[in-house]
């Protein structure tokens, strides 16, 4: 917490600051200022303007200021709106977890595996379906890694198999069985029209059909993948933008050890 904010709080300036009623901030505490933009499927007339205002109001805005509107030629109108949000949220019960990951580093992870699992962990990865974006999965798996963080190939206690892109789910499952993989890493970048959801769900079904869903730690990742989505689809974890190998590895080694203990 910044020195000044602390001081402001001390002098009571932040009387209005309340974790139970957090509001957007423009330039004064609780001013509620936010910016919105959207297009409406209406020509640029008064009717579109009114629709934009009503929509903003429904979202909970007051002091609605349509600062810009332009015709998108010819039956659509684009709007930029500023306003004051009436809503607030209560985060007083949410623990503050720093985004700086509490992940172990490469050496620690190798050591952790040596100590607790006493064997190499077998990790199988791929970009599946018709997706051919490999940069993400390579960032996690390849020697070179990402942003100065080595990928899993570099780990002494991890044996990796990166199948590349456009891998069919069937092929991926077959390979998982053959290699007796501990961890499956699936990358999905193309998300248009929910194609990733279909593809990721299908993989879970196949693994269940083969009776190995519980034998693997199943992880997906990609720029538009969230933890929540992953859980919903039946994955053990999901990782989004700016993930590095340590984050993923820390998760799966702990998970593997946990499972071993349960057995």
């Amino acid at each position, binding site marked *: 917490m910044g020195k000044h904010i602390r001081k402001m709080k001390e002098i009571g300036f932040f009387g209005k600051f309340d974790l139970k009623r957090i509001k957007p901030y423009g330039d004064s505490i609780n001013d509620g200022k936010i910016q919105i933009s959207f297009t409406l499927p209406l020509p640029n007339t008064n009717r579109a303007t009114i629709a934009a205002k009503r929509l903003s109001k429904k979202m909970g805005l007051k002091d609605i200021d349509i600062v810009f509107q332009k015709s998108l*030629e010819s039956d659509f109108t684009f709007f930029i709106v500023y306003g004051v949000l009436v809503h607030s949220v209560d985060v007083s019960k949410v623990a503050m977890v720093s985004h700086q990951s509490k992940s172990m580093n490469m050496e620690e992870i190798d050591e952790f595996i040596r100590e607790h699992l006493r064997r190499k962990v077998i990790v199988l990865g791929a970009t599946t379906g018709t997706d*051919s974006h490999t940069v993400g999965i390579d960032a996690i798996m390849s020697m070179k890694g990402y942003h100065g963080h080595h990928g899993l190939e570099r780990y002494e206690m991890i044996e990796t198999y990166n199948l590349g892109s*456009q891998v069919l789910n069937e092929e991926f499952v077959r390979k998982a069985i053959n290699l007796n993989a501990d961890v499956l890493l699936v990358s999905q970048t193309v998300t248009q*029209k929910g194609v990733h959801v279909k593809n990721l769900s299908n993989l879970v079904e196949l693994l269940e059909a083969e009776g190995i869903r519980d034998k693997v730690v199943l992880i997906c990742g990609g720029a538009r993948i969230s933890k929540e989505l992953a859980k919903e689809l039946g994955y053990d974890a999901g990782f989004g933008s700016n993930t590095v190998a340590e984050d993923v590895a820390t998760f799966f080694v702990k998970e593997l050890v946990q499972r071993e203990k349960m057995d």
Partner: protein
Amino acid sequence: MKRQNKLNLDVSLIKQARAKARIIAHDMQEFINQYTTTTIERTICRLLGIDGVSKEGIPLPNIVVSNIEVDIGAAVFLGNAIIQTGFNPQEIAEKIAQKKLDLKKLPMGDINGIKKTIISLANEGAEKIRANREIRTKLIQTYGDKEGPLLYVIVATGNIYEDIIQANSAARKGADIIAVIRSTGQSLMDYVPYGATTQGFGGTYATQENFRLMRKALDEVGGELGKYIRLCNYCSGLCMPEIAAMGALERLDVMLNDALYGILFRDINMQRTIIDQHFSRMINGYSGVIINTGEDNYIKTVDAVEQGFTVLTSQLMNEQFALLAGIPEEQMGIGHAFEMDPSIRNGFLYELAQAQLSREIFPNAPLKYMPPTRYMTGDIFMGCVQNALFNIITKLTDQRICLLGMLTEAIHTPFMSDRAIAIDIAQYIFNNLHSISEELSFKPDGIINQRATQTLQKADELLSIIKEQGLFQTLENGTFAGIKRSKNGGKGLEGVYRKGNIYLNPFIEIFMERGVA
């Protein structure tokens, strides 16, 4: 266009590098000449007038080609069938689909007679394409063509009707080229879908009907606006020549066409797609289509500073492959991209060097310049600025085809508003900096010039190596985009056939001797 000389490049080094690229391409051409592929044969079917699908939804060209000996070729089989049955190609295809005809079971007639028959039919097919080409030329003459960078935007809703709405809006905002992105994975399909489609992912299927619908829409809005709106689609993948043919028949104007893209980014077998590329480019060339090559993809995958020279290397090879397919420089939309980590000190100068380098080495080519994508983030405000710097370099180096960057590049395929914002920004910059390329010159031996010279030197060195080991070996080594592909790996090798003795592709001669330049 006169060759600019702002970079103080060593002209003899350019010549030398180009000569090496020529040898590489000619070596490959000897290989290419010996083969045909299933998609080339399907293309011949299409150009001879076969279209439509069977009851089961299988495209008739595929049905026909399943019914021939590919090493002899569809032309010979069809020519024979025409003579034997009196049906036209479409009728023949339909009969095959209905299992009422089996080409392999027809007795093979006199080969000279077959050739005559088929060449005359082929000329009819080619005539349609030539007519399309003339329509384009006329329209552009009537309306007058735009000077300076053409604004190229993509539509990618997955639904051809939404695409048309998007395209319409973009055209009215000022777009000059509308590219319909394909659904992800289409390039791996060894057939072309049929009819109007509304269910693509990250793009819309390339079908002839979709081409037709969009062409019509663009002609209409172009008519209203008094300008010719160019239409672009993609023919890389397992169906390169087929889609090129569809593009020719529906008057597309620009087509992404690059075997190297398919090899590296789609894991398509290298032999297959290099062979396909040749015929597809002949079609593009004949139909007056500007091809776009895919070198931008390399530096979307590997570092642009380190690997910039591989872009130039590939461009020089692509130029030679294009020449061998009869494509004039004016149709060579050689590709490159603005893909440097924005945190690099003086990155702008390096970018400027690369873009100017392409400009000076391919003075007559309508270069296609791709915007930042890799280093775009969810920060849409910063994104506008990254795109602006790209637009500035576009203008400063006189690029012809400017693919507009979207502020939401890292998020989704473009919304209608994203495109409008991009067009407004580009128009502001192109107008506000109108004469900038004439006004500014570079420091002799400065950072820009040094970077350009270095890139040229490295490309020349790499071309020496490729010349020695051949292009296939180079691809096996992972030289481009850090991706290794094996000569017999990837998709589609099964569709490659060595041409038999009586093999015939009647279009090769027509397209290569067309006398257009």
